[in-house]
């Protein structure tokens, strides 16, 4: 059990949840977050949005009963957090990178952005965000990126100049990641996707988050959540 440091409501049903304590995770890894409540039985997988000295931060959007329960958590309340789990984005990358996020899929990209910026090894780090409406966190992305493009209510994939990048990390709607994968093939870009699936155990034992890949079924929680784009979008 851990303590909620803050649970701040942003625009459009987005929240920033900070849990107090010392945490260490790779970019793209996730935790199982759970509040003891009759309306929430299973934990919810949440990718790391940010890690500070005194706590870990998650960005989420209220979409159903479970996230509504989380939204009602107050500062000082106890909350259960298990992780970090899974395989995140690769760190042995270089050249020019685009981080492309849609909706809550932007969460792991902020942590990736900060880690890559800190490592000082990329030539260019550009960020592309697709959101329904204007929100409060765009400017924090702007601070760490070379260039930030935000599209509200449109297709973010139409704004990427693929020829500029060697590598792309993406997380968001399947259609978005698929489109990026198609372009990545044309431009020989190394493309990594972070996949979202309903989970139960989070550690690779229960197989409820299996997904079909080029090499057969894989567990999103354990073998992923980050995969090579070509592993997931292998037929078209």
């Amino acid at each position, binding site marked *: 059990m851990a303590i909620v440091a803050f649970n701040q409501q942003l625009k459009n049903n987005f929240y920033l949840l900070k849990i107090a304590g010392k945490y260490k995770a790779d970019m793209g890894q996730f935790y199982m977050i*759970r509040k003891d409540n*009759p*309306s*929430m*039985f*299973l*934990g919810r997988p949440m990718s790391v949005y940010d890690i500070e000295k005194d706590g870990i931060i998650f960005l989420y959007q209220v979409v159903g*009963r*479970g996230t509504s329960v989380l939204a009602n958590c107050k500062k000082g309340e106890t909350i*259960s957090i*298990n992780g970090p789990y899974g395989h995140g984005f690769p760190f042995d990358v270089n050249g020019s990178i685009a981080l492309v996020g849609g909706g809550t899929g932007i969460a792991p990209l902020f942590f990736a952005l900060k880690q890559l910026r800190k490592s000082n090894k990329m030539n260019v780090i550009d960020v592309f965000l697709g959101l329904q409406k204007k929100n409060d966190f765009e400017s924090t992305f702007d601070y760490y990126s070379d260039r930030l493009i935000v599209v509200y209510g449109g297709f973010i994939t139409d704004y990427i100049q693929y020829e500029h990048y060697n590598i792309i990390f993406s997380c968001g709607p399947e259609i978005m990641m698929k489109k990026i994968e198609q372009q990545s093939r044309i431009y020989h870009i190394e493309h990594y996707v972070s996949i979202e699936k*309903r*989970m*139960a*155990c*989070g*550690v*690779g*034992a*229960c*197989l*409820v*988050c*299996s997904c079909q890949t080029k090499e*057969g*079924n894989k567990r999103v929680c*354990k073998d992923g959540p980050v995969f090579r784009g070509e592993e997931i979008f292998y037929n078209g």
Partner: protein
Amino acid sequence: MGKLLEIQFADIIFKNPIVMASGTFGFGREYAEIYDIEKLGGLVSKGLTLHSRSGNPAIRVWETASGMINSVGLENPGIDAFIKNELPSMKSLNLVPIINISGLTLKDYIQACEKISNENVDMIELNISCPNIKENGIPFGIRESTTREVVRETRKVVQGPLMVKLSPDAENIVKIARICEEEGADAVSLVNTFKAFAIDIHKRKKVFDNTYAGLSGPCIKPIALRMVHEVSTNIKIPIMGIGGIMTYQDVLEFLLAGARAIQIGTANFINPRVGEEIIRDLENYLLNHQISNVSEIIGIVH
């Protein structure tokens, strides 16, 4: 103190009565990264079939009040790949490995049991109760005639201890348990998940491609406990109690109701360390109540 939790179950010594349930613990590898799983009494493998299965497509899990519904559909590598890749490491663990076998046909059950029995495993759990295999129609464990047939025929090929995992959807679970005993089963485990249903109200469609799926978690515990109690007063072979166990208090209830050992399933998803925590809590309870061995309390509530 060392023997406080030790029990004998179907002629096998378990260092404690806490066993991890099939399908919730893989083959042990994942949880071994989180804690020392050799503290456990035993672990039941993911359900295995004669041939590999890729499981059910689309949504496999749905949350409900105090529980979850799953439709994994027995995704597994098949018995041969299991024997080659997973069995050696399971056998090397200092706990009782139990191999769970499922089948679509009687022939599948017999062949899979023959293969695994040749490997000298400690115990086989015969799963005649999975609600998630479509091809099967009705699981063998629902009806008395099919239960008798599958237990009789697999008993012929299994040399070691054979435990049969019962369905709570059985027409009469007491009669089914008696049939298992008559046909030579060494133990029964109960209960598997309940056949359940969920509808997505936004899409106005069924959640699972397979229509029905298996309900587990604390919402089923009182019913599972009643079934263990009913069965335990009607058979002599030992029972492994299963159904929504989350805490050591739940474990005590099942033991008092007549289970000699218990299995923990869904609770692993809520708290990955629940196994070691329950063992620690159970030990403290026995010490605080001056009980010298856990078997003293088994089945004392009639």
